[in-house]
């Protein structure tokens, strides 16, 4: 160790040439490449901390069993006839909970020194935010697949067949990814990871429970039914039910996609803006 000499290779650095060669903006292609590099980092991190997958593995298994046996009899008469109603609901719920983790983890990550370097590098400001979200697609896929597998184990026989189920999973992943921008934004504005968790819970609970995820809308009082009908999660749940149970691409799919588009269009720029301001 003592003989270590730390001297860079001899090669002259010329400032004027560098200034002339410098690019003034990040191109779309560069932004995409940088985002994928950041996604690689996030996947590495997941593989080194597998406990990050606890929630996406345990929640679908636990919640599917719990909700089916607790509410099945009361709502649909028996567990088996409740499954087609409930599984798409659990799908939406687990995917949303997974989104919430995105915000918390981003916040934790941002406190670390490495984010200083990300900020000092000539890279698109969106890349450090979007990268982990691309990696999170793995988490949504895991959560969604496990929800359906658990349903199948409990006797759920989706009428939409493999195509219908895959389409429902795909839609859920896409929605999860889009809604995650809300939580990413919360991650960039909140003071601590705990605060992110708290705020996210307040967004998450009304969104999932004030929807048609677990109960038919008809059983709700009018004022509540009105909110439930406009809740984007209800659209996702209905669309996923139509796809999984009947391989039916209903207008609900279009509404869901529209809601996703609006959320991304609003919250992605907001997130980048507040990330830039963040010290």
């Amino acid at each position, binding site marked *: 160790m003592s003989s270590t000499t*730390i001297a860079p290779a001899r090669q002259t650095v010329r*400032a004027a040439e560098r200034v002339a060669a410098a690019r003034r903006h990040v191109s779309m292609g560069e932004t995409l490449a940088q985002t994928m590099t950041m996604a690689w980092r996030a996947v590495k991190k997941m593989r080194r901390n597998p406990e990050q997958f606890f929630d996406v593995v345990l929640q679908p298994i636990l919640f599917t069993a719990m909700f089916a046996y607790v509410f099945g009899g009361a709502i649909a008469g028996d567990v088996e006839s409740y499954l087609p109603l409930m599984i798409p609901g659990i799908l939406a719920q687990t995917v949303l909970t997974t989104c919430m983790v995105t915000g918390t983890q981003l916040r934790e990550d941002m406190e670390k020194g*490495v984010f200083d370097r990300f900020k000092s590098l*000539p890279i698109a400001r969106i890349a450090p935010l979007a990268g982990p979200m691309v990696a999170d697609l793995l988490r949504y896929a895991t959560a969604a697949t496990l929800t359906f597998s658990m349903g199948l184990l409990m006797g759920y026989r989706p009428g939409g067949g493999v195509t219908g189920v895959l389409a429902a999973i795909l839609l859920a992943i896409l929605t999860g990814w889009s809604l995650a921008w809300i939580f990413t934004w919360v991650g960039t504005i909140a003071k601590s990871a705990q605060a992110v968790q708290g705020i996210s819970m307040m967004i998450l609970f009304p969104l999932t429970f004030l929807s048609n995820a677990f109960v038919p809308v008809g059983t709700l009082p009018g004022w509540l039914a009105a909110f439930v009908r406009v809740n984007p999660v209800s659209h996702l749940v209905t669309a996923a039910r139509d796809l999984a149970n009947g391989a039916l691409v209903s207008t609900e799919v279009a509404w869901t996609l529209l809601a996703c588009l609006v959320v991304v269009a609003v919250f992605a720029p907001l997130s980048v803006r507040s990330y830039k301001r963040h010290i």
Partner: protein
Amino acid sequence: MNITEPGTEPAVRAEGLVKAFGEHRAVDGIDLDVRAGEIFGVLGPNGAGKTTTLRMLATLLPIDAGRAEIFGVDVAADPHVIRQLVGVTGQYASVDENLTARENLWLFSRLQGIPSARAKRIADRLLGQFGLEEAADKTLAHFSGGMRRRLDLAASLITRPPLIFLDEPTTGLDPRTRGQMWDTIRGLVADGCTVLLTTQYLDEADQLADRIAVIDRGRKVAEGTPDELKTAVGDSTLQLLLAEPGEVPAAVEVVRRVLGSDPVLSPEQGRLNVALDQADRAADVLIALRTAGVSISSVSVAKPSLDEVFLALTGHETDDRTDVEENR
């Protein structure tokens, strides 16, 4: 070996930089002029505004007032260009804890558009240069503070930026690692880089820097070469504790007569610090004090500490913006 042509654009030109956090003005109107190819030291105690100044120049913090240019490029207007010209090594190693050393270097290379195969070669080269081959495939949890610093600096050099910011590069390092870091920094300049570093250590600034700005409470209190600063402070300091605090004015009179300059009064009662350009002038002062009948309870001769630099530089005038040049 070629060195960047002198006399072209200055590496850094900052005028009246201000950063306020609420009521507190962390940086309160700092001017800097760093010439291409030099090591410029920003010297100051904790909380003086060194790091904040560096972070503003590195586009990590918005500039509240004033302006800054790096190689003639405006920092506020063209942050993306600035980020291509400056490598930043922070006070706390800004590398990824979850990745190995090799993965860190690969990641930062890829982010800057270097193709994967070349990124691997660059990582290998830097790991070798910084003595990190053996630990290359360990995650940073197993790294010592010195190894992290080296990796951090290596990560700043991937694209061989012409200007490198080092924020307290040796704080917390053991003497040997410190010496290695100094050699590395000198090596960078030999390659034509410009280095702007902050430090709390006078000897570090003295060893490395071609020129030094002394910063205190968000303002520049002095600027000059290490020699110029030392002349202002004296090569060594005679520290006197008088038996009778009441005799301070008499002692000041004696010192002025012998050396032609005023001693610095310490906040402690009856204590004086006398800047000496030669250590053996201490004897002259002591003999003159004896002759004048001023009794002394303790005496020591020491190298000037950073405290004394500050006392000397801020003590002469109430105006914070004192230049060494004006002092002489």
